[in-house]
């Protein structure tokens, strides 16, 4: 057994770190460390294009589509160095991590040629049209309708919690294309231009005051008949394939960001004297234990070459990190004490730790709630019987 990374991987780490830190000290210093995804959009888009120009925008993709064919280990290393350098949250993470891999896995050659260069090049920002008012945890209950009219799909309905829809260029939409169908059957996976007439976006304000997600309305919005991935009625398979990207290994590299947050808590505790308080020290130590736990869990997954085993372990990762970070948010506020109650400026704008506390209230909800994760672990991982569903 060998923990850690090979020499070749360490060399790759140095290459990533040198380039990223150079950028964050130079041309893009103005957006180093900015929180969230909602401001400095134009600069963030320029940053995406800079990443693309140096082949860092989608390193896990095949070389012919702008990637580096990077291994899982290299992708994790890049994500770590990205966070360490303080590079800003990526406006096109949905394009690079979800839409692109889905098109690569399920799309036609024509679709690859049409969409992948824009995603890799940082010029096409994507969002995800999955959840609806009545289809959250029960995603298969989507009601948004897609009807084929001649050589066009006509889409009607509503999506919700559409992150970044307000500045996205494209959306992938899970829509019901067979009248009267129920559950996972009769669903089609469409890709639509967000500038299409009939698509309207309304921001939703979050509890941290920001508005990164939206309601997205479709009223007779049209797209060409060949906008689908897979075949009509077979969209659920594509949608689930995409979810595997979302819940799977793409989050393995996030521990560096968590490390930054825990370090900020330690700094705050040092500054206000709570670092000498035995109770606080215990809780900080507990957070450190949880972080290392995830770290070794991730390294284990990376060192396992059997994909089926990686998938089994990956089932447990979402609930682990989400619960850990929710607790981290509470620890941060206890360390900040009364200073954590007040904003940075006059507006409802938050410095890193209080914002992390508020944002982390959503970690155990988005991308599959803790309750759904436990169901998945129990039903798919342990083979327990499925919880009875009311309608099917």
């Amino acid at each position, binding site marked *: 057994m060998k923990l850690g990374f090979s020499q070749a991987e360490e060399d790759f780490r140095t290459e990533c770190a040198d380039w990223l830190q150079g950028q964050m000290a130079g041309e893009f210093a103005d957006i180093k460390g900015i929180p969230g995804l909602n401001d400095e959009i134009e600069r963030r888009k320029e940053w995406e294009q800079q990443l693309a120009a140096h082949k860092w925008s989608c390193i896990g993709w095949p070389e012919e589509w702008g990637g580096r064919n990077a291994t899982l280990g290299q992708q994790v290393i890049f994500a770590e160095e990205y966070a360490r350098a303080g590079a800003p949250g990526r406006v096109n993470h949905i394009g690079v991590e979800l839409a692109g891999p889905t098109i690569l896995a399920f799309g036609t050659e024509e679709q690859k040629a049409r969409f992948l260069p824009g995603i890799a090049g940082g010029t096409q920002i994507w969002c995800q049209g999955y959840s609806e008012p009545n289809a*959250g945890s029960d995603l298969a209950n989507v009601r948004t309708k897609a009807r084929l009219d001649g050589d066009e799909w006509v889409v009607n309905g509503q999506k919700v919690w559409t992150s970044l829809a307000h500045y996205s260029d494209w959306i992938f939409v899970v829509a019901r294309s067979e009248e009267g169908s129920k559950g996972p059957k009769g669903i089609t996976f469409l890709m639509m231009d967000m500038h299409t007439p009939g698509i309207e976006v309304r921001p939703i304000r979050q509890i941290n005051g920001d508005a990164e997600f939206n309601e997205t309305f479709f009223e007779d919005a049209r797209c060409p008949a060949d906008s689908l991935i897979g075949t009509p009625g077979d969209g659920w398979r594509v949608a689930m394939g995409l979810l595997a990207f979302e819940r799977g290994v793409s989050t393995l590299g996030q521990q560096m960001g968590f490390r930054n947050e825990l370090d900020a808590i330690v700094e705050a505790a040092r500054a206000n004297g709570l670092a000498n308080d035995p109770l*606080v020290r215990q809780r900080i130590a507990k957070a450190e234990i949880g972080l290392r736990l995830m770290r070794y869990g991730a390294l284990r997954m990376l060192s396992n070459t059997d994909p089926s085993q990686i998938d089994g372990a990956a089932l447990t990762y979402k609930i682990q990190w989400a619960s850990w970070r929710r607790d981290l948010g509470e620890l941060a506020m*206890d360390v900040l004490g*009364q200073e954590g*109650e*007040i904003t940075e400026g006059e507006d409802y704008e938050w410095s890193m730790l209080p914002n992390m506390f508020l944002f982390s209230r959503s970690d155990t*909800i988005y991308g599959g709630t803790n309750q759904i994760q436990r169901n998945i672990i129990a039903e798919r991982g342990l083979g327990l019987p499925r919880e009875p*569903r*009311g*309608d099917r």
Partner: protein
Amino acid sequence: MDFTLNDEQRMFAETAQTLFADTCTPDHWRKQMETGEARDDARWQAIVETGFTLLLLPEAVGGLGLTELDFALIAEQAGYVALPEPLVESAGVAAPMLASLAPDHEALSDPSATIAIQHPSNPFVLDADLAAAILLHKDGEAYLATPDQVTLTREQSIDPFRRLFRVDWDPAKATALGKVDWDLALDRAALFCAAQGLGLAQRAVDMAVSYAQERQQFGKAIGTYQAVKHHLASAQVAIEFARPVVVAAAADIGNCDVQARARVSHAKLVALEAAEKAARASIQVHGAMGYSWEVDVHLFLKRALALTQNWGTPNFHRSRIATRMFTQPTGPDQTFARETENA
């Protein structure tokens, strides 16, 4: 010790409950957040007319001369609606303190006036700009000033309704009131924070229960699923066990000794832990809705957070409990000493 409430106490609590249910609805919150107004004048007037602002004041200064337990019941109801106005800090903490120092002060003769308090344990002062008078502290002594005699800097709280101010002031421009028992003010405030915590917690649970009954996923109300209902059951357990601690702390607060103080601290810890637990569960049960500003649960999360960190942090209150344990005699004949005395 008697944990039952008398008719008068029940009546006050019910009056508060009805008044707040009518005048502090989600529509009221939203309107007040939109306009940014500090007070809902109609609501404040109704509160004043019920006598809640006079409840803890001695009869000699025109008050009702009731007890901390009576006021705690009102505070609990204030928590249940995340009341924006500073009823609890003004009428529950600052006004009784002022009455003990300057019973003839004119601010006490106007039941609609509020009094703000700067306490050594808090960096900020709630609603200082609208107060008829601000109690200030320096070197253990109390001073009194009006808002125009001090410099106020507004700070935005995580809680959209908490109007906080940094107060800079010059003792030469304020009225000196002499030595005062700041600990009693802290005890009262901590007790009423605890009482509010019970209300916050119950509201968070109630909101989640009604959502879980309506919201359908997989063809059923989500409250059907054990994964959801167990969250709410656990939160309710925390509330039920916190409530008697709050009552016990209120009944005993006048003793101002190490036992009474530990009991107040215990109440603040468990009631606000219940509130945090309930808010966390409520957000989770509401799913993504719970993370949106529109669905009011965040108000209870944020109020709970603010009350937890003010009027003594959890660390401070745990250390007061530890003080009781390490300074009081131990042994079988000493166990639960105060309960035996009061039985």
